[in-house]
């Protein structure tokens, strides 16, 4: 009997411990902190400690190229710092941050995902837009389906690769299609016809670029910056009256393991140097 009790307590103890440590299932409702509080750029006194530090930045997949460059420049300016990036669909990153991923900075491709973090009280002190982007149609180098105009996206049998509606770009794409359907040039059923051609809903824009680049898809809709970063691809621009402007917000996170560095990185992205890199990668400034 004694043996049994001991064994039982050994088996149950970790389970109890686990459930005790687990965070509450439903986050306590909190008053939504007013979004977009101008981030007061703290005068960064990154004390001249040479102890190596790591900064973890979670950024939308469409920022892969630009933030890679910004990260290198930031490391050059702060020799003891290593910047680690995790690039994925913004919605993936939000889920990971909500589940406790130890990120310092979050840069989203839309406000919707950023607002979700604000609501969950996970944003340090509001967020700030640092870039904007537009969407465009991309085609494989050989253009196997002979897509020439935006109308061709509705051609039956076309293999169109989009992002899942939960991905910011996927959401923007569907808004654009809705805008186009309101124009008699395209017709009210344009959006329906185009969506019927979707062969895959990918989890981030870079997956769409890869599938179109491989020639598996006949067309895809991604950010202008993604098209610029893949010069082999052909593209058809979407006129401004249908296009959707994607606003990219950035923030230091409430639970950042390294809050000073997080603030410094956010400030760098918003600085003239950071903005120059964003421009180089095809992004437009947040406040033109």
């Amino acid at each position: 009997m004694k043996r049994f009790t001991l064994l039982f307590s050994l088996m149950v103890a970790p389970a109890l411990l686990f459930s005790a440590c687990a965070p509450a299932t439903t986050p306590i409702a909190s008053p939504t902190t007013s979004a977009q509080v101008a981030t007061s750029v703290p005068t960064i006194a990154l004390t001249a400690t040479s102890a190596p530090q790591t900064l973890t930045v979670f950024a939308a997949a469409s920022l892969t190229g630009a933030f890679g460059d910004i990260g290198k420049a930031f490391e050059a300016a702060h020799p003891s710092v290593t910047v680690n990036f995790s690039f994925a669909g913004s919605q993936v990153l939000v889920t990971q941050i909500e589940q406790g991923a130890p990120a310092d900075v979050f840069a989203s491709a839309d406000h919707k995902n950023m607002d979700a973090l604000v609501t969950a009280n996970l944003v340090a002190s509001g967020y700030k837009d640092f870039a904007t982007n537009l969407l465009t149609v991309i085609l494989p180098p050989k253009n196997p389906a002979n897509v020439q105009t935006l109308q061709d996206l509705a051609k039956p049998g076309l293999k169109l690769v989009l992002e899942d509606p939960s991905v910011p770009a996927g959401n923007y794409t569907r808004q654009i299609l809705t805008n186009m359907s309101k124009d008699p040039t395209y017709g009210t059923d344009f959006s329906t016809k185009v969506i019927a051609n979707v062969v895959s809903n990918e989890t981030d824009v870079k997956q769409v670029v890869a599938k179109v680049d491989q020639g598996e898809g006949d067309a895809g809709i991604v950010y202008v910056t993604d098209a610029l970063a893949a010069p082999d691809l052909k593209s058809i621009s979407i006129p401004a009256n249908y296009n959707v402007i994607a606003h990219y917000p950035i923030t230091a996170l409430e639970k950042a393991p390294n809050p000073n560095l997080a603030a410094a990185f956010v400030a760098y992205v918003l600085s003239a140097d950071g903005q120059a890199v964003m421009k180089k990668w095809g992004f437009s400034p947040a406040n033109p």
Partner: protein
Amino acid sequence: MQRLFHQRRVKKSPGWVFILPSLVLVGLIGLPLFALIWRSIGKDFFTYVFSENALSALKLSLLTSSISIGLTLFTGTPLAYLLAHWKFPGRTLVDMLVDLPVVLPPAVAGIALLMAFGRTGIFGAWLNAIGITIPFTTAAVVIAQTFVSAPFLVRSAKIGFAAIDLQQQEAARLEGANEWQVFRYIMFPLAGRAILTGIILAWTRALGEFGATILFAGNLEGKTQTMPLAIYIGFEQNIKIALVLSVMLLAVSLVFLAFLKKLEEPS
């Protein structure tokens, strides 16, 4: 009280040396699964179970894994027999090749499948020329599942065939049975249990296939979005959906494994 752990003790030894490390592993595997089920419980559990998205993913998963198993059985059983009883040049090579998908990361499998059967792939381009495209189709899901799961059946069946006494084959041959008859009436029934074990292992692996599928077949509800893909997408939208779908997949896999346990019991 009856002893909890029966053991043949040569001399009195502290059983804890075995029990404690075992508990760590059992906890490591058990606790996350417990947490998964615990967190999935909620008043809207059945709303998600019977949602169109979940049912269509489950249906597609069951359909594609069944076709995949049929394909594996049809091609993998003869191959296992060859590997167990024939001597031919390159046998070791084929043996290793068939085992390779077990150790290969699924993402590698997905890229390899694209390079071979993608629209611009080495063989895919040729297929495309005669009007057959594989990526983004349900067939692509089946191919990805077969690629990763078939080795489990081949390995298991091979061991089953190898354990059969060759004298029985000889006796059958002396009676005038040809190679096919030996296979059909002697080997297949005798290796039946090993083949069934292989079927179940391969089936559960096919049901869980994710990496190769999302790369090679894409993600479209009702066509290529199997349970694991629906779980991944659910994780991004609403963790509750992901949890409920995970528990559904867990339940299906448990049924298969329970069946396997039944088989492993000595008759």
